């Protein structure tokens, strides 16, 4: 039941996108996010869709799988949509029921912001789906390295992220197991009012924390036993290297940004 979360799940493969340098992918993802924010009208999303579709095709991930990843966000999406729909002021009234007024501007706004959210999530999912967590944090660490001059703990932060990412599936599995064990003892997580449901979480959360702390303790010992002492003078097994693929990725993303700007100028 907890396995339906696509967000942050690596989809193994050997496509050009998978083989790109994680640093470049991180930078390009940020550029893509900026690009999505620069979209100023609805047709602009057609360009974003075309670009995203191209990237996904190259990566070998099924588009359906990516769309499925939005499902856990449906409540935030509906919330954004409804909020915009009812509270944006406008002139052209489409529907008026008592104090509820829905205007054309509000509807456009609602669709616009919901789409922005969808494109942000789908685009960043491509990054996490095509980059293994290890490579991702490797890339992050390298990108943050210049900040070490200002005593920014780049290595420690990357290590923390690696560990956190590493333990997400483990803890999900653990949660699932504890949940089932309590259900076997007649616990009910699905019905009752909000307070009853919050209370029902106690038999789940207490064992989960106990086991998380125990795991953290074991891991700290295992790391110390292998003489881990932070990032100083640490060499790496795989050095990151930019390749021709990264250049292609850069050019494609630059083209995307250019088209977005041009479209905004022409239609905005």
């Amino acid at each position, binding site marked *: 039941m907890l*396995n339906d979360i696509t967000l942050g799940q690596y*989809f*193994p493969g050997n496509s050009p996108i998978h083989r790109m340098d994680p640093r470049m992918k991180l930078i390009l993802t940020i550029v893509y996010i900026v690009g999505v924010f620069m979209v100023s009208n609805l047709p602009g999303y057609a360009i974003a869709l075309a670009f995203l579709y191209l990237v996904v095709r190259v990566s070998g991930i099924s588009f359906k*799988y990516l769309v499925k990843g939005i499902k856990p966000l449906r409540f935030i999406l509906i919330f954004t949509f409804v909020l915009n729909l009812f509270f944006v002021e406008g002139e052209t009234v489409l529907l008026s029921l008592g104090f509820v007024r829905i205007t054309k501007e509000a509807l456009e706004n609602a669709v616009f912001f919901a789409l922005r959210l969808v494109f942000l999530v789908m685009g960043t999912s491509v990054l996490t789906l095509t980059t293994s967590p290890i490579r991702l944090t490797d890339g992050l660490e390298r990108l943050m390295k210049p900040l070490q001059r200002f005593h920014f703990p780049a290595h420690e932060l990357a290590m923390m992220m690696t560990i956190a990412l590493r333990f997400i599936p483990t803890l999900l599995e*653990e949660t699932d*197991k*504890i949940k*089932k*064990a*309590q*259900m*076997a*003892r*007649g*616990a*009910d997580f699905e019905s009752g009012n909000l307070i009853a449901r919050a209370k029902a979480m*106690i*038999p789940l959360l*207490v*064992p989960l924390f*106990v*086991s998380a702390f125990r795991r953290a303790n074991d891991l700290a010992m295992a790391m110390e036993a292998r003489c881990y002492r932070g990032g100083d003078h640490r060499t790496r097994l795989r050095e990151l290297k930019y390749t021709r693929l990264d250049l292609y990725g850069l050019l494609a993303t630059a083209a995307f940004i250019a088209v977005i700007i041009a479209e905004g100028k022409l239609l905005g």
Partner: protein
Amino acid sequence: MSIVIEKLNYVYMAGGPYETHALRDVNLTIEDGEFVGLIGHTGSGKSTLVQHLNGLLMPTSGRILVDGMDLADKDTDRRAVRQRVGLVFQYPENQLFEETVEKDIAFGPKNLGLGEEEIARRVRDAMRRVALDYDTLHERSVFELSGGQMRRVAIAGVLAMEPQVLVLDEPCAGLDPRGREEILSLIRGLHSECGTTIVMVSHSMDDVASLAERVIVMNKGGVFMDGAPREVFSRGEELRAIGLDVPQAVQLAQKLRDRGFDVPQGVYRIEEIKAVIEGIAGKGEKHA
């Protein structure tokens, strides 16, 4: 009360990159009062199968009838099913959460909506059955106990639901030999004294050999063998082919046969092989 499993299939994460077909066309009937040992290699589908027995997992296809109730049916009262079929997970001590031993064991009966007195009776009863002293332990924190004690508290938590069928997934995993013996003898007691139907999942052939009346061997999501322990353990070659082994007594019997001793076929219990060896030793003395 019997459990009938018909053409059960289960697929994990259907459609995703990690899709796995965990159970394939499993057909089984577990009769009232049986003691079933369920063995199989890691990933053979044992744990998936046992989670179907009380409706924690829903079949992808096929059906399971517990006492005539169809588990795939949405209208079936799950709590009634879970009261009848108690499931003790692997490392069950990881599920303990209450402040005291008593409260933790009372969690199940409380969820069943029983009265205070009945709950108190059941807690005492369950603790007695797992050989934990009520007076000294009931107010202790569960996290102060030893590993073996924590496991027994967890088992008591399931027993307090008073199930007619008790399913245990690797009840002895990670225990020292003494803790192991204690758990096994309490399971044996439940079966012989209370007549509880037992399904025990185990990696240990010796545990299964010493307790089970029927052995089901799983392999790659299907039932590979199903029969009396004597029958199953006499097919050592086939078991080895799927990465399992035979009990030590069977191994010893085979070694003795290889050396020319006369050991009857079908010996699989420690007591049996002991008698055989004593017999051989006795003859040896007479010759001398």
